[in-house]
């Protein structure tokens, strides 16, 4: 079928899901229990008839359902996600400000946890039933059960208060450190682009602990799955065939075991992004990280529904697209999927 055709098909298949996403957020937006307008606009604005009328007009609340939905879609396409009652700014603007921080953190977490998870899983499988295996399995077990917000707290207490190895929950940069000129919104990238090495270093320094904490869950999951699929690949008949040709040791693992073992681990990536985005909500709060997670939490606490729903929509979309990309990646790695068998 070819990778390109597969890719296009897969992306097209996500469209109905995206549409459903929109429908759900729409329904949640407009059909909250109680007086929707009062809740959407907040108490103060909700009691002001002019604002209420303006809101009605903007979102077409007087018209039938499908028309409302059409208005909703139209508004979305122009980037109008409503107004945040907390920040008094358009939600879209808030998201543009906060999203890069979350993406930077998430990518860092995936990278760190991904590399460590793969390595741990491979080592555990190669040392099956000896102490590295036991250690990795123990770590994975704990990582799957520890609440991420608690781990954030405890790790801060240990590594910041106790050992002083990492900065405290002061955000992305230390006090007095100026952010680099914005190109992507990711401080690390932007600092590198602007040649500000010390800012880069400071940004990385502030990323260390949050990335590890956020990535813990993913690390545990990846280590377990990598270990399981390595063990399965190590026992596979084609490994015996390779042995009968005189292939052994590192070459055997590299050419025969790893490529087969790593394919299932790719599927974890999709799950991981979902887990990471969920975890970001909780981690950012503890580290005072100015990302969409913390934004969503503050908004939820303040009953700022437009903001909450805006975040939900954006994160949901990111998740759907990521899953499609992961499926395509999986097909790229496994010729049986790509070539249709």
């Amino acid at each position, binding site marked *: 079928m070819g990778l390109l055709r597969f890719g296009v098909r897969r992306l097209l298949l996500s469209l109905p899901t995206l549409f*459903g996403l929109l429908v759900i957020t729409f329904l949640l937006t407009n059909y909250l229990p109680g007086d929707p307008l009062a809740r959407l606009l907040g108490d103060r604005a909700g009691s002001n008839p002019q604002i209420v009328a303006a809101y009605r007009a903007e979102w077409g609340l007087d018209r039938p359902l499908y028309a409302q939905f059409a208005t909703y879609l139209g508004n979305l396409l122009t980037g109008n996600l409503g107004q945040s009652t907390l920040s008094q700014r358009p939600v879209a603007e808030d998201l543009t400000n906060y999203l890069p921080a979350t993406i930077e953190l998430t990518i860092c977490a995936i990278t760190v946890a991904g590399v460590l998870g793969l390595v741990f899983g491979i080592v555990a499988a190669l040392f099956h039933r000896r102490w590295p295996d036991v250690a990795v399995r123990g770590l994975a077990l704990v990582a799957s059960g520890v609440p991420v*917000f608690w781990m954030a707290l405890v790790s*801060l207490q240990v590594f910041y208060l106790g050992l002083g190895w990492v900065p405290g929950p002061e955000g992305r940069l230390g006090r007095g450190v100026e952010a680099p000129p914005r190109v992507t919104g990711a401080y690390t990238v932007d600092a590198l682009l602007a040649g500000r090495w010390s800012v880069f270093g400071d940004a990385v320094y502030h990323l260390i602990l949050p990335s590890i904490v956020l990535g813990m869950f993913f690390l545990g999951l990846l280590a377990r799955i990598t270990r399981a699929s390595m063990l399965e690949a190590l026992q596979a*008949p084609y490994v015996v065939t390779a042995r009968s040709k005189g292939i052994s040791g590192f070459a055997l693992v590299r050419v025969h075991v790893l490529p087969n073992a790593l394919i299932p681990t790719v599927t974890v990536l999709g799950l991981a992004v979902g887990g990471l985005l969920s975890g970001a909500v*909780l981690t950012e*709060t503890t580290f005072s990280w100015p990302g969409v997670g913390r934004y969503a939490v503050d908004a*939820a606490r303040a009953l700022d529904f437009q903001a909450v729903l805006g975040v939900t929509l954006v994160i949901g979309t990111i998740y759907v697209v990521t899953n499609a990309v992961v499926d395509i990646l999986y097909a790229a790695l496994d010729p049986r999927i790509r070539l249709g068998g």
Partner: protein
Amino acid sequence: MTTAADTPTTSTVPSRTGLVLRGSLAAVRSDAALVIGCAVVLAWVVIALTVPLWKPFDPVGFQDLAGRLAPPGGTHWFGTDNLGRDVFSRVMYGTRLTLPIAIGAVTIAVCWGCLVGAVAGFAGGLVDEVVMRLSDIFLAFPAMVLALAIAAALGPSGKNVVIAIAAVTWPEYTRLMRGQVLSIRNNLHVTAAESVGCSRSRVFWRHVLPFGLPPIVVKATVDLGMAILLAAGLSFIGVGAAPPAPEWGAMVSDARTRMDQWWLGLFPGLAILSIVLAFNFIGDSLRDRFDPRMRTQRRRGGSSASMLRRLLLPSARKADA
């Protein structure tokens, strides 16, 4: 499936319940993880049920402002919080909030999800398509994000947390159940039952469902742990049970502003960790037990022996193809 009543020949054929009982006892004896998991869960359940009887201090009412923020020691095993409340009592009482929420949410999710999935599997066609799209949409949101949105929309309360968690958890049961129904339907014993005129509902309840249950049971066990994590997370954010309720997540949230008082956050978190791990242990053990391939690997000799088995027995090798 024959029961003792159906085999009139020899009286030495053990009844099915007897086999199950003996199997379970053997399982418990041989599987440390399962034992530990069950013990921990049982302990927490007992605590949840009995703590009003033996609590050292009232978790909400007792406030010793003079002795506030005291480290663990003396009469306060886990120390006191900013209002002088006993942390130990609050942690113990936390189970009474968390466990019902988790159990309630997972029960709703399993019942609803399995029902919908079974209907989709049996009905097929348009119903199936619609159901699968619907569950896809719910699965399109990361769990915490959707739960947050729902809980925020509905208002902070324990009941709404249950709804939010259930809403996030049900789709996977639908997929699971549907998959099971579709594959089991083609089994010979189902065809046999249908051919002698069993009604569709009888076929479902007595022939399909019992075989589809194992992975659902495994998942439900692990999901109980996930539900606890979600519930704690939601109350950490502040959209769960309202203060001064001694909910674990909320206690950790309070501890954030008082990082020097390490005991405020440590113990609630350990409580969460212990019970979630316990559910994971149980779930893992059950999964290993239900997977016929893994069963051979569990005996001494382990995976190398099963590898040999696969190499040496042509029938075994064919099964792997």
